[in-house]
């Protein structure tokens, strides 16, 4: 039994989500190979070969895989699939994009967003915005799985000595191509990997007020998140949204400021170790999940918090 983990990277280094996915693979058991698909991604291979517990690193470096176009990546993965019992990818927007395509081409089901491995064919995953936890068994020969990265620890980045193999296959279906990209630039830690997250909601009232959170974030080394209400109001870009349909985070400390705590938001953060809520409405549902709740006006409380850190 061998497992193929399709890595997430930025053409220079592996992203932390890959290390969490390798951990999930190691819990299934069996030899683990890592696939790196991209364009100009050869530098990733060296760091990937050092990841603990990897047998082989497969590198598919070609312009056809630039920005991991789903049609081309899926075509490549299904060609490699016969050698593996399990195919795993992190449940990032990228993994969610190509993995179901892989599953359908292999004529198997997919198990999305697993949070626990029970056995090589049985997995646990949240449904209904995390309000129910399902245990599911896959009867397919090849298990196609995406992994909720916040539910698994990262494996060590060092200590392994995998062999690196270049793949010569080029799959270019020519069905779609990238026109442009507009990436938000930030020096803060990545939202899904941050140890501390501070999020703002509708209560922040304006875009400018998010600066209050930035000041606290700078002192704590935290990432900044937001509720859907804050994104829809145009306070912050949508890649900051935490929730069922945004990012799923599970930091050590999550500070929710001016967020009421709708089911859809809680689905993205309720596995945080410690949750703090600052809200002026003492009946806000966020207080039901908060370890520490403070009923106060955020415009007074947040600057005070910043000063006391």
């Amino acid at each position, binding site marked *: 039994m061998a497992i193929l983990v399709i890595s997430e990277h930025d053409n220079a280094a592996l992203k932390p989500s890959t290390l969490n996915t390798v951990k999930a693979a190691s819990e299934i058991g069996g030899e683990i190979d890592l696939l790196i698909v991209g364009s100009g991604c050869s530098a990733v291979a060296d760091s990937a070969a050092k990841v603990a517990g990897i047998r082989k690193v497969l590198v598919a470096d070609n312009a056809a895989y630039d920005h991991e*176009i*789903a*049609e081309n990546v899926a075509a490549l993965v299904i060609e490699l699939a016969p050698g593996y019992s399990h195919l795993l990818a992190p449940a990032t*927007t*990228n993994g*969610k*994009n190509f993995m*179901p*395509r892989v*599953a*359908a081409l292999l004529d198997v*089901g*997919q198990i*999305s*967003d697993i949070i626990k491995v029970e056995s090589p064919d049985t997995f646990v995953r*949240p449904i*209904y*915005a995390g*309000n*129910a*936890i*399902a*245990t599911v*068994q*896959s*009867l397919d020969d090849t298990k196609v799985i995406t992994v909720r990265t916040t539910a698994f620890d990262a494996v060590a980045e060092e200590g392994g000595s995998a062999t690196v193999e270049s793949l010569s296959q080029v799959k270019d*279906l*020519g*069905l*779609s191509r*990238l*026109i*442009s*990209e*507009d*990436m938000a630039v930030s020096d803060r830690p990545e939202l*899904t990997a941050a140890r501390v997250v501070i999020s703002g909601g509708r209560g922040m009232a304006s875009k400018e007020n998010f600066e209050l959170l930035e000041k606290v974030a700078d002192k704590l080394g935290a990432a900044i998140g937001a509720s859907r209400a804050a994104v829809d109001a145009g306070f912050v*870009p*949508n*890649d900051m949204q935490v929730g*069922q*349909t945004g990012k799923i985070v599970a930091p*050590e*400390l999550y500070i929710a400021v001016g967020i009421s705590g709708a*089911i859809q938001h809680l689905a993205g953060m*309720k596995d945080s*170790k*410690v*949750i703090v809520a600052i809200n002026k409405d003492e009946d806000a549902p966020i*207080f039901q999940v*908060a*370890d*520490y*709740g*403070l*009923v106060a006006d955020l415009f007074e*409380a947040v600057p005070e*918090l910043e000063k*006391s*850190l």
Partner: protein
Amino acid sequence: MKVLVAVKRVIDYNVKVRVKADQSDVDLANVKMALNPFCEIAVEEAVRLKEQGVATEVVVVSVGSKACQEQLRTALALGADRALQVEAADGPDSLSVARILAKVAEAEKPDLILLGKQAIDSDNNQTGQMLAALLDRPQATFASEVKVEGGELLVTREVDGGLQTLKLTLPAIVTTDLRLNEPRYASLPNIMKAKKKPLDVKTAEELGVTVASQVKLLKVEPPADRKAGIRVSSIEELVDKLRNEAKVIA
């Protein structure tokens, strides 16, 4: 061009679900059901394409028991031209739905197929991608903008870290994200008119698809409860607790 929109009947997003005592599934008896929010966005986008003169016909399809006709009527009231219900037991898996939709697409020959990015019950986020694979067509998931330009499709996608714009050859499959549009409400006259619009019923067997899930649901449990938190009365007390009790800040 012709647009096909797939819609799903799901539990209303405001309802807090309860797990059945025997752990077999969540309890959906006497619970308010609705059109999946992402499907609503897909219908809205199709109707807007029609209003712009880009789309000529909007067909909505749903796979499920007779009850999902209610959601198809809602889509018709929002502006879809006709509907198709593919009769199947409730809760078929994504691959079965994708196979059924692929058969529908082969018969209808749409130029564009719109789906929501995920259903809020199973939270799978699979069907659109699977359908694209089965039809061997391009896909654009998590769309926040859709434009038809010179026989090709320009789609802006919400990805981790920002936005990405793809150009796809038609026919193509697009799944909608929250910010694609704000769905309209159905007006009473339109709800009345929707009752007269055509709604066909087919079975999965007629389409030559067997609905059989290879993913077996073993049990469903409620999530672990968080232990009750405490209210603090000041920032000073909060910082003290975080430092000395929870030890999450230095």
